[in-house]
């Protein structure tokens, strides 16, 4: 018997002023005891809504408007809060992306466990302490940390504590909604690997929700792919990897590649998910699908058994009936990708030919932190040197705390180095005063990590883009406006008049990031610092932004410093890679060489942490 069974579930968001949004439509799924199931989709696909609905955590205005959810044979669709409460945490628990922030800042870790454990059992304090030690050890945290307060732990550790808390009462089912998103690749991998081991030992069932199909495939037994509120494909993870049948799954898988290959092609799915408050006809994916046939636009495909899984796609079904098994196509589906392709060849460029723009020579920066009577010194940057040159991308790769952001601050002149020189032509950036700094910013611009906080919600796109033009270029309002429209066109937002009038909240994450890039281009800078520009975007659109950046840098001869923790994207975009660990350069060189032949153990660790579902396949080749 299945542990969790969802049958024909509908979830609708009913708001007062807008038409109702059917976020989840007719979804059925089952999860057996001890099974590890992945649920994948872009943002806005309804995956979190579905997850919350299965554990009755929907908050208004979301409501279950049809279908049933049963847990352990009991229908919990309409069960009252009073009867749900004893089940929560003991039978069903959950970890969210923001769970690390749900730890109470004024209570030590142990007290938070005690609250949870004693609410559901009569354990004594001594027993609780023993159990907490056990749980913390389980998630690879030293038991002595139980005396600590949440702010004394790093983000990754807090998320581990949240996971241990969720598992404290040995639940039968755990919902994990993007549990590692926002953490470092290395930490992400470590947490998921640990989770998988614990899950095998304790045999609880997991529903892992993520936009990152790569990691879901690596860790799950079975994968569900969700698009626009419906399940479009369901397969065992191994089958999905070998022959994804739905074009959407193929599109999602196209975002992964082995960074060591000579030529890397990753794909993205252009366009956006449909507006679910509007009536629709046919397959909802059809407008973005490269395989769509006329039938797709007329009739919605049903989720039907195909092979060992379930697929909702007319084309996949017809192919299967015609005997065209994906197995026979071999690995060709990966080159015949669903969507647009961003290809990066290994071209032998002459790095000496390019003009040097910025020199960073022997720079060190020491921070002093005082806490109580103790003073600690943190060597944020330790004797780092590099050169940014025209039309070249230099990637700075490392985990959080490796000194990447400090280097960005030093390059832009926000911080001054303790020793070393930073020179932009004849200009010494490390000696600039207030006035000089302001002038210097004509030449150096930034692309930020989070497009949601990088645009002022109060201004329209056009007025945001006009400011740098008026300030740095001395343009009149009229000139600035027409130049801003050109910039919108440059970053692929057409027609520009339409996008110009919008406010940021009317744009998707990818579109916002394009605006952020357009703003950075506005003063025609010599240098652009891109600080993790794709890490908060959906995996499916990352390649799109990388491609845009790549084209702009080459065409306009900009020197770019690309800051990231992700070696794959560094490989795709950069000419040179600098690997940074604890403020020191551990490895530097041409991108292909660093990736193909990593010398330092830390580079190898970073390389191993890239979610790459094809890793075994590549090894077998």
């Amino acid at each position, binding site marked *: 018997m299945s542990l969790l069974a969802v049958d024909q579930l509908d979830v609708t968001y009913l708001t007062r002023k807008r038409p109702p949004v059917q976020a989840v439509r007719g979804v059925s799924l089952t999860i057996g005891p001890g099974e590890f199931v992945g649920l994948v989709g872009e943002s806005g696909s309804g995956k979190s809504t579905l997850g919350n609905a299965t554990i009755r955590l929907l908050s208004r205005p979301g409501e279950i408007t049809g279908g049933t959810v049963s847990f352990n044979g009991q229908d919990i669709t309409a069960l009252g809060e009073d009867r749900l409460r004893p089940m929560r945490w003991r039978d069903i628990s959950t970890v969210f992306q923001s769970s690390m922030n749900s730890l109470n800042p004024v209570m030590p870790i142990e007290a938070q466990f005690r609250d949870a454990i004693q609410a559901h059992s009569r354990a004594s304090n001594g027993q609780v302490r023993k159990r907490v030690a056990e749980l913390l050890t389980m998630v690879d945290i030293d038991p002595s940390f139980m005396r600590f307060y949440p702010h004394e732990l790093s983000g990754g550790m807090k998320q581990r504590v949240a996971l241990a808390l969720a598992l404290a009462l040995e639940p039968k089912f755990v919902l994990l909604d993007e549990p590692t998103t926002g953490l470092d690749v290395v930490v992400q991998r470590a947490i998921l690997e640990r989770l998988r081991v614990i899950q095998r030992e304790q045999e609880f069932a997991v529903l892992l929700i993520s936009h990152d199909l790569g990691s879901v495939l690596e860790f799950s037994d079975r994968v569900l792919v969700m698009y626009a509120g419906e399940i479009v494909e369901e397969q065992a993870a191994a089958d999905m990897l070998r022959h994804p049948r739905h074009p959407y799954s193929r599109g999602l898988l196209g975002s992964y590649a082995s960074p060591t290959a000579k030529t890397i092609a990753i794909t993205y799915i252009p366009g956006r998910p449909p507006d679910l408050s509007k009536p629709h006809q046919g397959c909802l994916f059809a407008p973005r699908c490269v395989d769509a046939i006329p039938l797709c636009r007329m009739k919605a495909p049903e989720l039907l058994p195909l092979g060992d899984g379930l697929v909702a796609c007319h084309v996949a079904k017809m192919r299967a009936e015609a005997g065209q098994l994906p197995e026979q196509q071999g690995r060709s589906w990966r080159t015949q990708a669903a969507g647009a392709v961003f290809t990066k060849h290994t071209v032998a460029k002459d790095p000496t030919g390019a003009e040097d723009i910025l020199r960073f020579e022997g720079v060190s920066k020491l921070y002093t932190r005082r806490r109580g009577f103790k003073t600690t010194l943190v060597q944020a940057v330790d004797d780092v040197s590099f050169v940014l040159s025209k039309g070249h991308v230099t990637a700075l790769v490392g985990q959080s705390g490796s000194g990447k952001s400090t280097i960005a601050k030093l390059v832009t002149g926000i911080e001054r180095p303790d020793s070393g020189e930073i020179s932009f032509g004849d200009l010494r950036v490390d000696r600039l005063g207030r006035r000089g700094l302001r002038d210097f910013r004509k030449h150096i611009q930034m692309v930020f990590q989070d497009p949601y906080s990088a645009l002022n919600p109060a*201004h329209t796109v056009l007025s945001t883009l006009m400011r740098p033009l008026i300030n740095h270029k001395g343009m009149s309002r009229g000139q600035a406006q027409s130049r801003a429209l050109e910039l919108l066109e440059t970053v692929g937002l057409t027609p520009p008049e339409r996008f110009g009038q919008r406010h940021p909240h009317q744009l998707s994450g990818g579109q916002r990031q394009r605006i952020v890039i357009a703003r950075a281009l506005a003063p025609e800078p010599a240098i652009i610092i891109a600080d993790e520009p794709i890490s908060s975007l959906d995996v499916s659109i990352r390649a799109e932004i990388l491609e845009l950046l790549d084209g702009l840098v080459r065409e306009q001869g900009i020197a770019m410093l690309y800051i990231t923790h992700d070696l794959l994207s560094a490989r795709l975009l950069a000419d040179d890679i600098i690997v940074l660990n604890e403020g020191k350069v551990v490895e530097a060189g041409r991108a292909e060489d660093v990736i193909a032949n990593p010398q330092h153990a830390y580079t190898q660790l970073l390389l191993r942490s890239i979610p790459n579902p094809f890793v075994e396949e590549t090894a077998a080749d």
Partner: protein
Amino acid sequence: MSMLQQGETPTVSDALPLDEEGAVEQQTRANRRFRVPGWLGILWENRKSRVGLVMLAIFLIVAVFAPLFSPHDPRSNDFAPNLDPGSGHLLGTTTKGEDIFSQLVYGARTSLIVGVVGGLLATAIALVIGLTAGYLGGTVNEVLTFFINLALVVPILPLIALLSAYAPGQGLWVVILIIGLTGWASGARLKKAQILTLRSRDYITAAVFAGEGLWQVIFREIMPNMISLVVVGFMGSAMGAIGAEAGLAFLGFGNPETISWGTMSYWANNQGALVTGQWAWLLAPGLALSFLIMALTLVNFGVDALGNPQLREE
């Protein structure tokens, strides 16, 4: 398998779903609707705020066109004293023989002027001090915070009473000035707290990189995001100013020549209106004052949507 657009970059809008057009159309329609009254339309959306706006409009009209609404000159004491409400005088007459209703109508003028000017003054001071302290931080913040805290702990009404007693001149404007200069502290503190959360956003850094100067960053980038807080602060200061003026007048520190709801209550109390059964004389100014403050409170409910374009659509 069809290979569409292989190798070429489809722009985002190419692939946008068709319904995108509809969204844009909706947006322009919304713009059109908001353009005529601007912020007023946004406030009008909210039911409570609509009631408040109507009440406020009534007070405004009465104040502006006071000569049209009042049957007599409020200062004329040609009538029989101590008349009961109704007897040719809607709310009766005072012990000096003045028409109470006419005084009430002209009192609305005083209260609104005090509210608007006093509120504006207090808000302006709060804004400059709060925003500067919050955005610049460091020593500037320490010094300004010291003054904010100082102004917060000083009991305001006795201070105002003291100041107005010693102030050169006794006019209404002196009272307004004193109220404005003493009522900014809590507003400054609130604004400082808000700016501390706003200034770490990436778009502020982006604005600095876009070449914006200090005041441009504060007033162009940060201010619009706290406009609701500013408006709420203004309403609060206006209410405080109206109340303070009335309180001062009631205690006898105001200019007895001024006709305001406060001086009306002062005289009513002073002349033993309750003893002589002149309930309307005592009650009317108090009620008018409560209704004006209530109107401002109700308008406040709609203010949140002003600073948040997203809220307007939900």
